[in-house]
């Protein structure tokens, strides 16, 4: 405790980012340190687990130290530690979990494990201080495309998810084949602004009537087929048009399904989360479609969309408040479900 406020240290190492943050009362970000490995990964066109683990290990202590220094607190002020224990890359997760356990043990602070996906949703509690459940959450990132009903804190009902590739993954793969490189999402977003989204008619994949699941693998194949066909015909490929048309086909389906889910569960708010929630076209389209049905759309600022420790701290705070048992035996669970 410091100045009567409950302090949570959040630690996140599930993928690219080594991150730590101190959050007061589950809502107020006192510090948010993110050390990204994206420069390293750019050279490889994706996340390389071995590098990820090694870099996390090199940085974790400094990142935690800086998070506490930036917040002006010391370990004795921390009331709770929250750490991501899945889903993610096993080697990467283990670094955060081990660091959190060591600190919890040495300083006698309760430790709770946080599901990374719950963290993404909790990012919105930091951005919108008056937000409380119930609401509909849409999580779109490199590894996930999920629609989740959130009836109360710490309760998440997954209504739909991807059956093959995640949205961000589809962006990455298509960006790679059209030569835009990694990370694919922001690069496609930027190129799409210069392109015509109606220039190529990629088929939208909605699956069975009423389904809240997604499938982007076929769309990826459509894009590849288009590129092959154009190359064989000797036509020059307009990268911006491919980016815009592909992006539109992805985000239109996501926006439609998120709105459909909100209507079905009578939620008046859609809360966006995950890296792809920063996609400018997705944001615009979902606001347009939701707005037409009197549904509000909330989204965290880009820094909270990316993986960060603050969202983990917030999720840990609410889990602890709801009675989550502190666990010093915590282990990483790479395939953790909702």
């Amino acid at each position: 405790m410091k100045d009567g406020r409950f302090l949570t240290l959040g630690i996140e190492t599930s993928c690219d980012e080594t991150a730590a943050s101190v959050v007061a009362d589950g809502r107020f970000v006192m510090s948010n340190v993110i050390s990204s490995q994206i420069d390293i990964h750019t050279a490889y066109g994706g996340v390389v687990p071995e590098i990820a683990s090694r870099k996390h290990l090199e940085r974790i202590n400094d990142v935690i130290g800086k998070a506490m220094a930036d917040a002006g607190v010391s370990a004795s002020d921390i009331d709770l530690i929250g750490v991501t224990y899945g889903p993610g890359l096993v080697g990467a997760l283990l670094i955060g979990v081990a660091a959190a356990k060591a600190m919890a043990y040495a300083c006698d602070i309760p430790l709770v494990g946080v599901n990374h996906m719950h963290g993404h949703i909790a990012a919105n509690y930091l951005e919108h201080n008056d937000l409380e459940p119930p609401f509909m959450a849409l999580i779109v990132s490199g590894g996930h495309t999920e629609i989740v009903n959130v009836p109360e804190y710490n309760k998440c009902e997954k209504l739909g998810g991807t059956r093959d590739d995640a949205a961000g993954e589809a962006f990455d793969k298509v960006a790679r084949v059209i030569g835009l490189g990694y990370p694919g999402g922001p690069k496609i977003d930027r190129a799409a602004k210069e392109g015509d989204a109606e220039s190529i008619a990629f088929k939208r994949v909605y699956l069975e009537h009423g389904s809240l699941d997604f499938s982007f693998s076929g769309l990826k194949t459509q894009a590849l087929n288009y590129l092959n066909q154009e190359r064989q015909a000797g036509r020059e490929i307009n990268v911006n048009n491919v980016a815009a048309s592909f992006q539109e086909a992805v985000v239109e389906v996501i926006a439609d399904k998120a709105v459909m889910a909100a209507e079905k569960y009578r939620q008046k708010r859609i809360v966006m989360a995950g890296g792809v929630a920063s996609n400018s076209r997705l944001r615009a389209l979902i606001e347009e479609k939701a707005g037409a049905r009197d549904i509000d759309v909330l989204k965290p600022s880009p820094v909270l969309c990316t993986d960060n420790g603050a969202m983990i701290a917030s999720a840990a705070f609410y889990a602890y408040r709801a009675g989550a048992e502190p666990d010093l035996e915590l282990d990483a669970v790479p395939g953790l479900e909702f």
Partner: protein
Amino acid sequence: MKAIDNFRRNLNTEDDTRAFGLEIAEALEPGDVVALIGDLGTGKTALTKYIAEGLGVTEEINSPTFTIVKEYRSGRLPLYHFDVYRLGSGEELLDIGAEEMLDGDGVCVIEWADIVADVLPDDAAAIQLEYGENEGERIAEFL
């Protein structure tokens, strides 16, 4: 792995891919490794889904690109589904602890296996997937 006819298959429809996946699943034994090789969009994940179906896996199989490997235990044998698209070498595969799975009680299906070929067992069943003549058609060949 039990004997399987290793002639070249024309997978002209999704049903053909399913039949092939089920046939592979039928032949799988503990410790088997299926190495799938093929470009983006040639149906590696789709084939894996049908292998999983054949094993009796009830969970949804989706792309493991993000976490490199996903584990499914609801079938006749444990299934380790790898996508090593983001890896640079076989050594990196071992770095994430894959050895236990490669040499374990279950079966491994590895997408983009050519990237990690140097650390795969010699008796891995390597299957190359390629685009067929027409859109939607694929050709599968044992290497």
